[in-house]
């Protein structure tokens, strides 16, 4: 069964005014449990509006959202439960830190969930481990940490609520390459260990290609495509046309194909690119 399912999901802004605009229109989506899905789309494509529906922060103008088979707007109780079941990490989540210590900040969510003291303790330890923060950070003020560390604390705060679905809205925005790799590796490890469903909103096709199993491409409020990374990048030209970028190696292989050097498959990682090119050199007779 799909963990996330939407049916004819539509959200209009400014209804009844001359500025009425559909942020998303007729979105039908089924995401299987345990996937790590990259969500891409340019600004205004509707991806943020979509993910805010998935834990009921936004109410659809029409259509339905099912999490684990239940319509999340069926009752207030279900909606409340959904907020914890689907954890949402916003852009620049470090601006939401507010507690005196890292430990207290992470404990805030589980406490509100009604966890016992023991459970809270365990949830905090688990979440800190997931984001690679050692015990030394517990008593520190979140405000004396570096940008990347703050962001890890904020992500831990959501992980601590043990969500079944974790959604991260551009978790690497503004980080340097090393900070970006650290966060993405942590998310990938978390996904592997917990076997949870993770949605990762990103502008970087390189990152999506490297880490995700599926890709959801949004364009002008519609689902442009949803499929494996290979399926997605087989439409590289169309993706570039809608204002998105494909990984540089993918562009390289289309350029090589134009010169008569076909790879015979979609190439979107450096590792695979290297293998294919080495083979070409080998066939040629050892360069």
């Amino acid at each position, binding site marked *: 069964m799909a963990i996330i399912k939407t049916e004819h999901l539509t959200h209009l802004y400014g209804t009844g005014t001359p500025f009425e605009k559909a942020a998303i229109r007729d979105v039908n989506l089924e995401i299987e449990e345990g996937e790590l899905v990259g969500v891409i*789309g*340019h*600004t*205004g494509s509707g991806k943020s509006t979509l993910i805010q529906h998935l834990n009921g922060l936004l109410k659809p103008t029409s259509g339905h959202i099912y999490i684990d088979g239940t319509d999340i707007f069926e009752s207030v109780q279900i909606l409340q439960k959904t907020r914890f079941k689907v954890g949402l990490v916003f852009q620049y989540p470090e601006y939401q830190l507010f507690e005196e210590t890292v430990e207290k900040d992470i404990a805030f969510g589980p406490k509100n969930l009604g966890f016992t003291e023991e459970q809270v303790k365990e949830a905090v330890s688990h979440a800190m481990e997931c984001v690679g923060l050692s015990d030394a950070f517990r008593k520190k003020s979140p405000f004396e940490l*570096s*940008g*990347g560390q703050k962001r890890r604390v904020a992500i831990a705060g959501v992980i601590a609520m043990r969500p079944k679905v974790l959604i991260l809205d551009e978790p690497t*925005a*503004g*980080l*340097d*390459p*090393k*900070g*970006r790799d650290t966060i993405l590796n942590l998310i990938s490890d978390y996904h592997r260990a917990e076997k949870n469903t993770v949605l990762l909103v990103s*502008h970087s*096709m*390189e990152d999506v290609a490297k880490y995700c199993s599926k890709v959801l491409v949004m364009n002008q409020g519609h689902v442009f495509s949803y499929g494996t990374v290979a399926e997605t990048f087989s439409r590289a030209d169309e993706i570039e046309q809608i*204002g*998105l*970028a494909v*990984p*540089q*190696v993918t*562009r*390289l292989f289309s*350029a*090589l194909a134009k*010169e008569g*050097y076909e790879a015979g498959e979609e190439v979107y990682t*450096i590792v695979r*690119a*290297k293998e294919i*090119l*080495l083979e*070409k*050199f080998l066939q*040629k007779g050892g*360069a």
Partner: protein
Amino acid sequence: MSDLIEFQHVSFSYHQSEEDAEPIPVLHEVNLSIKKGEFVAVLGHNGSGKSTLAKHINAILQPTEGVVYVDHIDTRDDELVFDIRQHVGMVFQNPDNQIVATIVEEDVAFALENLGVPPKEIRRRVDDALKDVGMFAYREHAPHQLSGGQKQRVAIAGIIAMNPDCIVLDEPTAMLDPKGRREVLNTIERLNKEYQTTVILITHFMDEAVRADRVVVVDEGRVLMDDVPKAVFVQVERLKEIGLDVPQVTELAYELRKAGVAFAPDVLTVEEFTEEFKRIMEA
């Protein structure tokens, strides 16, 4: 060409709070000179000191030791701070923090109005600036109706309306989508090529740095590398060591060389890689 910006033995440190005895060092002995009309990319991981360096260029910060000259003006001279800021405009990461007015053209006019430029002149310079960044059609829009890339171009228009010799951009594309990034980069590049505006671009995106004339790598408050993009990016291992990236094709060339292929190490673009690949295959 004469040097527009000159760092001589610049060190900078700050006190985190009044009681702190030990100042925290950020820049050490930085020597750097940038000529009029150059397009310089500055790379470095978070906390490397690159933003601190940038803030010295328009006297937001002043050196603890050493001197920064902007068009021969010493930035430590408080009387001349406004002259320096007319030479050097700054664009920051978050477009929402830089836009002050409720209409695009009023925002671009803001600084000119403060400087007491005559209204007719303001009209002309605002229109020209908006045309230069491709935002003239949006002059009567409210900024919140614009995309991130468009807002950033409005912020750039606000700077170029002042006719600066130099624009410093501190990660201007960090919050933008690929389309917004392209728009901003193309705008910056055009200002540099057409008007010979000196551009200093701080970025984490290697594909942007590749387009500069020169790349300066900052690490631990020191200038670690300062050369043309090819000469910098060819040092794949060294860059990775300090937490930076290289373009994917450069990394691929590096990987091929490691596997024993005599591939040129300094390919930075898809076109260059394709040429080099053909050269080997057709040899």
